[in-house]
Structures are given as structure tokens and as C-alpha cells.
């Protein structure tokens, strides 16, 4: 198999939150266009990995490196990472009162465009971009004039994250438990949109507890994270195996290793 360029290269990453070491040495390489899934039991550090790559200030990096497009990702502010093309779809998206979804998304897109030296979009130009994106993933604009995430159902919030992903066109999209709290129809809708957004210049890191999302989005690589380390990596079949056997057999493996 012909391998693309390394987009993200994580080595020996150790991370603590509130004094507790959560990640205890993670190695991970993601190449252009690849879809990686991170699975693991609760408390294994999956969400920590997603948050720390996006630069959440509550997480302290103890050791290790993360190179993104050859740059030191860990040295960049959250907004610098975002402007460089790192996108995190949040497990719990926050509400912003009084600000419409449309205004928010345009501000975000314009922040990215400024970084790239492109002219900012006025509301009318933005609307055209937005409508094209909505059409490509088969959604309507019903959420756009409501305040950001305010009064959104769980499913709407997750869809909104994917819509932002579609408009902001990141190079590395990290999905943090996007499947949690979704019923089967909503899950399929979100998964189909993600599949639409896959392309050779965009990599995905999908963090999930359950295998069910991976029934719709076939990953290139599946990693199992347990107790802060990646204990096993494999192809899509590894996800099936986990679904059948649970996580315990791996946890035992960690203990003997």
C-alpha cells in the first residue's frame, strides 16, 4: 500500500490533567487521507488525546512531541492549530447565547481565511458557501439562524459540529465521541456526512467507545487505547473483534506486558 506523507506524528506523549497522568506515552502517526479510529474503555484517555491535540488549556503535556505538517503542534495556541487546519468535533458542544450559528460560522471561517491571506466573506458570499456545503451533505439551513447550540437536541448539536467541519475544511478532523447520544438514524446521517467529507487531503481521527459508528465509516487503522497507552493497532477487523470480546482481554494483555 502506497503511503502518504505523515500529517501528524505523535511520539511518547504523556499528558496530565489536574495532576493525574492520563496519557502515559502515546505514539501515533496519521498520514494524509487516512481515517484512524481510537477505541478504548471509559477512562482510557481517548478524549484526553483529542483535547490535547486541539490544545485545551486544562491539559498539561509532561513529555513527548506532536508534529503537525512538520511543525510543533504542542507549541501552538488553540486558535493557531485551528487556523492551521486542526478541527475538533466536540463531544459536548457549548452554547453561545445571542449569536446566530450563521454569524459564528462566518466569523470562524473568516479567521481561517485571514490566516491564509484570503479576503473575508461578507454575509451574502458566506451564504453561498454555506448553501453549497449544506447541499453537498444533504442538509437544510434550519439550524443556521438559531443561536449557537442553544436549545439544540443532542443530535442537532452533533450535526452542527459536522456542518462546521464541512465549512471549515480542516486537514485533520478529530471527532470526539461524535456517536455518543445519537439514535440510529442520527448516527447514520452524521456518518454519511463524514463519508462525504473524506478525501485524500483530509485525515480523520475518530474517537469512539463503541464499534457501531465504524459500521458506517470504515477506518484505515484502528487503535486500542487502554490505561493511557495504545496497546494494539490493526485494520477494521480489530473493531469487530473488540465488539465481540469487549476490552477486558486487552487490559489483561497490558498487565503482563
Amino acid at each position: 500500500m502506497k503511503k502518504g506523507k505523515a500529517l501528524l506524528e505523535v511520539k511518547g506523549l504523556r499528558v496530565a490533567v489536574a495532576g493525574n497522568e492520563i496519557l502515559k506515552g502515546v505514539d501515533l502517526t496519521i498520514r494524509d487521507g487516512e481515517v484512524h479510529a481510537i477505541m478504548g474503555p471509559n477512562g482510557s484517555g481517548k478524549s484526553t488525546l483529542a483535547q490535547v491535540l486541539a490544545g485545551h488549556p486544562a491539559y498539561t503535556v509532561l513529555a513527548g512531541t506532536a508534529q503537525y505538517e512538520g511543525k510543533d503542534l504542542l507549541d501552538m495556541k488553540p486558535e493557531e492549530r485551528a487556523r492551521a487546519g486542526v478541527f475538533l468535533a466536540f463531544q459536548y458542544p457549548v452554547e453561545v447565547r445571542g449569536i446566530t450559528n450563521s454569524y459564528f460560522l462566518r466569523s470562524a471561517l473568516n479567521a481561517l481565511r485571514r490566516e491564509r491571506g484570503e479576503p473575508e466573506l461578507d454575509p451574502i458570499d458566506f451564504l453561498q458557501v454555506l448553501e453549497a456545503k449544506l447541499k453537498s451533505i444533504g442538509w437544510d439551513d434550519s439550524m443556521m439562524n438559531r443561536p449557537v447550540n442553544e436549545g439544540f437536541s443532542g443530535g442537532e448539536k452533533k450535526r452542527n459540529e459536522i456542518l462546521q467541519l464541512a465549512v471549515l475544511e480542516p486537514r485533520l478532523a478529530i471527532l470526539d465521541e461524535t456517536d455518543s447520544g445519537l439514535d440510529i438514524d442520527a448516527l447514520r446521517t452524521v456518518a454519511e456526512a463524514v463519508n462525504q467529507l473524506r478525501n485524500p487531503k483530509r485525515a480523520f481521527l475518530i474517537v469512539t467507545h463503541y464499534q457501531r459508528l465504524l459500521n458506517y465509516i470504515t477506518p484505515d487503522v484502528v487503535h486500542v487505547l487502554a490505561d493511557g497507552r495504545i496497546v494494539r493497532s490493526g485494520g477494521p477487523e480489530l473493531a469487530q473483534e473488540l465488539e465481540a470480546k469487549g476490552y477486558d482481554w486487552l487490559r489483561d494483555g497490558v498487565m503482563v506486558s
Partner: protein
Amino acid sequence: MTSIEAHVQQPYKYGFVTDIESEVVPAGLSEDVIRLISGKKGEPEWMLDWRLKAYRNWLKMQEPHWPNVKYGPIDYQAISYYAAPKQQPKLDSLDQVDPKLVATFEKLGIPIEEQKRLTGVAVDAVFDSVSVATTFQAELAKYGVIFCPISQAIREHPDLVQQYIGTVVPYNDNFFAALNSAVFTDGSFVYVPNGVRCPLELSTYFRINASSTGQFERTLIIAEEGSYVSYLEGCSAPMRDENQLHAAVVELVALDRATIKYSTIQNWYPGDEEGRGGIYNFVTKRGKCAGTNSKISWTQVETGSAITWKYPGCILQGDNSIGEFYSVAVTSHRQQADTGTKMIHLGKNTRSTIVSKGISAGRGQNTYRGLVKIMKGAEGARNYSQCDSMLIGDKCGAHTFPYIDVRNSTAIMEHEASTSKIGEDQIFYLRQRGLSAEDAVSMIVNGFCKEVFKELPMEFAVEATRLLGISLEGSVG
């Protein structure tokens, strides 16, 4: 200091001092000082008598201490009650205004020179105890609108002033109103005749410059039947280690079918991070909807002052009259605010709306205090109140004291309240979408205040948004 709190540290941008020769009356308060002020303003006898009556009353009053704010004792004999830049006593045109004063107001974004005036806005510029310029007076006179310093109104329109002054806020209303009534200097006077829609936004800018002085301005706005006026006040002061007292009185009178829209953008010096210095902003503002179908709407954006203590209210006397209060109050560093409104329903089918947004950052303490009183005769009165508080960081405080007094069973009252906290997760979410920390805070705060900002006149909404950005810059990192 958490990264969130590390962000409210932005120097006050209007803290400069104008080096100008001033005439300052020696500190202290007595009947002689009041006679002196009255004499300097060339006032008629009845005005002096009214001042003296207020003063004698004030001597018997106690400074109130019920608000939720803390400050040391005020020495009323250590304050100078009159300070004015030295210049010719009477100006024939604005060209004679001292260039230093013109430059001062220009620096504050208030151009008073003929060629640079703000379009659509007439400005009265008050410097310490005197008005130094009022623009567009002749233009407004064509419509019968009087817009001038109150000292000029007392000389030139004594009947109007005598008819209305003290009718909404009596000289003995409260301790600070009584003090103001005794020693008030300049402020604005507005009179809009029957059926006239005032063609310009009217605006007064108050600047304190001299040290060891207080500012005691008084504003009186009268809207005759079927008239409309929109008025806005702004203010600022130099950075000083001392606290300076600003005790103003504002009275509004709306007759049948008249509407008065009164907006405030308050940016007095708030003191430093440790709470040294800053203005004590102890103000009495009240409007009377005297006529049927009249309306008074207060909008305030309070970002400055060490202590803000005021309750712009409405007496809804005319049947079907409407009172509104929209407020954004920001306290950061060690600022304290105890502000809100009073809605007194007397007439039938009177309505009031209260929307209050309190934002606390640093060690700021923000209190909403509001009274809604429905009197016996107020059949079918309605009130809607909404009080929202936002906290930035974990050393600030938000408090809400809504008082409701209903004496008519047909009244319909609604009250909503919420408290939210800007947290790192919220800021992080916006930064993860590419916004800087400053833009993230500004977006969250502006969204929170949106219902109030949309009430401001267009020309000033942008200014308010910007001011809020400055006050909170540095509060999130």
C-alpha cells in the same frame, strides 16, 4: 490567577488630564458656597432659594448605607463644589472655545468644532462644572426644540425650569439628590414642543478633569404632547488615586403620547486593579410618564466607576403608559455596582419591561436591585422582568434583589433570572474554531448583551460594543 482572569487587565484609555487653568472654589460646603455657585451662574432668586432649601434639608439627612457596596466615609467638606476652566464668560461662537478643551473632547471622540461635528447628533460638552459648547442649537431652535446647558435654561427659560424642576425627583428625595439640588452645576436641558419629533439625537458628554472636585450635574428633559426625543449621555474622567464623587440628578417628563428614549454609556474611571481611585457614581434618575400613552425607555451600559449606585426608574402615571429599562453593567477588577430600576405603576394598563445583564469579572461585585410596584388604581398593569448574570472567573460575585409590591389583583407579573459562567470550555470551543481569546470573549459577552445593545441608537451601539471589549480585555487568556 487563572488564565481566564489574566485577561481583564487593559489600561483605561480616557485617563489623561487636560492641563488647563481652572478656577476652583475652595473645598467645603456651606450656604456661602451655594450662593457663590448660584451667583456664578447668574441665577434668579427662586433658584437660589430652592438650592438653600435643599441644602438645609440635606444637613438633616443621613447618608444611606443599604446598597450592596463597600466604601470608606466621604468627607463632604473635602470636596470642591465648583471647578471651571478660565475663559471668557460669554461665548458668541464655538470658535472662542479654548483650543485645549476642543482638543480634549476630540481626543474623547466628541468633536465639537463646526466642521467635524457628528452628523445627526447634537452635543452638549460639559467640562467639570460648566458646559463649554453645545452644537446645533440654532438648527434645533427651528423646530422649537430647546437644547442647552441647564444654567442657560434657568436664565433664558425660567418658567419652564421652575414648572418642572424637582417635580420628578424632589429636592428632598434622598441624601444624594438633596446634595445635588443644593450644589448642581451644569447638565443639559431639553424641551421638545407639541407634536415635534426631534430631528437629531441629543447627546451630552460629561468630563471630570479637576482633582478633589465632585461633579453634580442636573439634567431635565420635557417632552410635550405627541413629541419624541432620543437623548444619550457619555462620560469619562482622568485616572487619579483619590475617589471622586459624581452625584447627578436626571428628571424626565413625558406628557400625553410623548416618548423619551434616554441612553447612557457610562465610562467613568473605574480605579486600578487594587481598587485605588475611581469615581463614586451615585445618581438619581427618574422619569415620569405623566400623560396617557406616553413612554419612557432607559438604556444604560455601565462599564466604568469604582462604584455605581443608581436605579433609573419610571413613574407610570398616565393610563396605558410604558416604562422600559435595558441595562448592561460590567464590573471588573474591584468595581462594585448596585443598579437596577424602579417601575411604579399608577395608571391603568401600564406596562413595564426590565432587561438587566450583569457581567462580573476579576473581583467585581455586581448587584441587580429592582422594584416593581403596582398601585391600587393600576388596573391591568403588566411587568416583565429578566435578570441575567454572567461570571468571568471565580473571584467575582453576582447578586439579584427583585422587590415586587402588588396592590391590584389584575396585575400580571413575569420574572425570569439566570446566572451563567464563561468558562475555559466555552472560550476553548470558540478558539478551536479559529477565534482569538479576545474575540471569543467579546463574542460571548456581546451575545449575552444583545437584547440591550439593540435598544441603543445606531450611532452608539458600535461604541458600546467596543467599550465592552475594552473593559473586559485581559479577563480571559
